[in-house]
């Protein structure tokens, strides 16, 4: 039995009718055609589906859509502003923190949640924050470098604006 759902995704409000069994991942990918959010396991095991829900990183595959009625979701498509990449995205590009790229949207979103909470994390904090995201290509080393560099970059930006 479908039920109404209101979601704000990347600043835009969507009113949908969804089945109770539908996950946020399914709503994003199938209904809203936002395919940047990946589905790597559908069981909360790989983090490729990570998005922000009210600013916190969640596995979209483990989140029932109806459970977050009225929520604000940010996906990878919502990060770049007016064609300018977010500093996190820039740092991933610059540091070679990706290869096949399948896990990348999830890593970028998990990093966004981390840096919003801890602006300049230590490597230990980065490792702990990203433990739910798997990468098979890079060995993580360059991802850690990118995340910390993005943190420093954002901190500099804040100082400039302060």
């Amino acid at each position, binding site marked *: 039995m479908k039920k109404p759902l209101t979601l704000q995704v990347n600043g835009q409000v969507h009113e949908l009718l969804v089945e109770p069994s539908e996950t946020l991942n399914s709503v994003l990918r199938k209904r809203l055609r936002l395919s940047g959010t990946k589905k790597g396991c559908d069981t909360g095991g790989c983090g490729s589906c990570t998005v922000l829900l009210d600013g916190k990183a969640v596995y979209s595959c483990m989140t029932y859509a109806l459970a977050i009625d009225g929520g604000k979701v940010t996906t990878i498509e919502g990060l770049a502003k007016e064609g300018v990449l977010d500093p996190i995205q820039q740092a991933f590009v610059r540091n070679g923190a990706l290869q*096949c790229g399948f896990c990348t949207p999830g890593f970028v979103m998990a990093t966004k949640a981390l840096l919003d909470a801890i602006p300049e994390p230590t490597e230990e904090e980065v490792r702990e924050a990203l433990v739910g995201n798997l990468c098979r290509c890079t060995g993580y080393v360059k991802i850690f470098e990118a995340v910390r560099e993005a943190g420093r970059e954002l901190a500099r930006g804040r100082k400039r604006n302060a």
Partner: protein
Amino acid sequence: MRNPKSNLEQYTVVGQSIPKIDATEKVTGSAQFLIDIELPNMLYGKILRSGYPHARIARINTEKAKRVPGVVAIITAKDTPLIKFGFMKDQLPLKHGKVKSVRDEVAAVAAVDEETAAKALELIEVEYEELPPVFDPYQAMKPDAPIIHEEMKSNTVNLPFNFKHGDVERAFKECYRVVENTFKVNFVTTAALGTMGCIARFDERGDLTVWTNTQAPFEYQKDLGEANGIRGSRIRVIQPKIGGSFGRGMDVYPIDIITVLLAKKTGRPVKIVFNREEEFSASPTRQPCIFRIKTGAKRDGTLLARDAELYMDNGPYVSWGAFDARVMMATVCGLYKVPNVRFNAHVVYTNNPYSGTVRGAGNPQSTFAVESQMDMLADELGIDRLEFRLKNANEPGYITPQGMKITSCKLGECLNAAASRIGWKGRHKAGRNRGIGFASYFHVGGGARVFRSDGCGAIVKIDDFGKVTLITGATEIGTGSDTAMCQIVAEELQIPVENVQIVNDDSSIRPWDVGTHASRTTFIGGNAALLAARKAKQKLLEIAAKVLEEDVTNLEVKNGIVSSKIDSKKTMPYDTIVRRGHFKLSGEIIIAEAFYDPPNEMQDENYRGNISVTYGFGTQAALVEVDRDTGKVSVLRFVSVHDAGSVINPMLAESVVQGGVAMGVGLALTEQLIVEQGRVMNASFADYKLLTSLEAPPIEVQFVESSDDAGPFGAKGVGEAGVIPTAAAIANAIYDAVKVRVTEIPMTPEKILTALEHRQ
């Protein structure tokens, strides 16, 4: 191909650590992977698997399943042309008569969505008559074992990978010390984040388009055609972004053929994508191996003989993975200088999951055995483990017993660099319960002629806006080969890399290539691109010579401009030259093609021949700490030093090595598919222990200064290198730490504890 022997300082694009050319689309989520592709009117397929390791199919009833609303088609073997496929033509896409593994495909459904297809699968009734299974390669080789393929009369696959050189028996008698062990490598899987999948669509003319994650699109086109009874000329192969592959994409699998069968049956596009559970239980695994190996040396530390007997658990069907035995042979016979060698492999059918080829193609398995023994032998001889390796290290001019000719080789430098970086020399002990271990590798570095051709085609086009397009047969599977090839073209044409785009996702446009394997893409695809760019440049200069009224030999290119070396007024940008070529009588375009096939030799029936024009070498050093109470091993530092020739893009090459090392650490310590009675028991990321951000060690990568005459701008292949010696280096470090030798990977805490107990 000759290239200036030097490092890359004279170049402006090659040798630079520029980001991957597709990095921006990958960080914004706009990169399209197979799962992201949706076609109008598309159906979704699901495959029913047997669940029995060995059984006769008595009856299949699909009636109930067909009645599920939204189901469009259900097929079983009887709906198919029963064409056997695979390397030994030993399987059907949908099994008929008998199933030979738990993962065997029995029926397939196409429905309006995945949920409906899954619901229908549950309603398909299949009756089986169970047959006695066999899971152990030793047992399978016994005369009274159940025969898996009755028509073959034996479970030993008819692929004799045997080699002998010198007098091994006599050499062992002359040895001062000999070590003899059995090593075991268990089931592991590629665990790419993007799972296997296929989309198939027949158009109004009856031509087939497939979207696939294959690494070898042209072999795929041929094999998929044969398996479906369709001419290759009527198949178009498109590769979206590939979400990791690691060797998985070397073969055509049942999923590909079934997708095509469903598309044919329904007349609609069909998509099948493995879920994670299917990926763990039904995608190809690395070849599990048992090595019985013996190595001996003289009193002064000179290696005299090595003898290995290999048993490979092939599962019920032969893929390219069986041929990994040849790579293992090359390591047993060629890693370090050993004059007398023997190698015998037994590829054995079992009722386990069927194995494929995975990154390193057998080399991580054989290097684990060979390099573990190097340490054991050094200790027996009372020689420093590093000195022992240095004494026997391969060097330029050396020819392995199989006839592999070593040209550029800096293994000695790699050994010394790794030792110095990890702090080996002059050390007393790495610390309480800490140890250092080394292992080196020897791998093809200039492609490998395992097919009759080892070639790649490339086309370079310069358009009237000065944009350069490289159209290549070579496939990128994430490693950065596309970027490296664009750098090569940009360097040759003296333009920024941003002005080069690459097209290599459509078989109807791209020239032929044998596929991405054997770390060959940057080397061979890069050489092809370089040749094509050189030809395009020549055409550009010839048109410019006419327009500028200057002798072609007086012209040079720089920053996208052709100018005269003797008359500074004669200068013109590429776009103008190209337009001038278009807008004249008998006009010209600038497009050039090249095919590069290296002088690699096809090995003869005795496995002799120089399979690659050049080889890659390197040494890894691990510093580990072993917790004696829990058996847990922590990798504190990891150093990976490589002779990869000149490095086209150091940042990307480093990343590829780091990823390889991480995969190697997983292979060494944590990863294992638990297979019981032929069934994968841990088919999820929660249970299959892939390295996470918490366990990933710091990985220091170093490339020694090197240049290879045959490589594009001196480069050699390095794609697989990182994973090859890692397990051996860690095993050796564990021994150095706590004096226990673990001969089976993964070296789990349980195994370490057991070994520690045995020692006491």
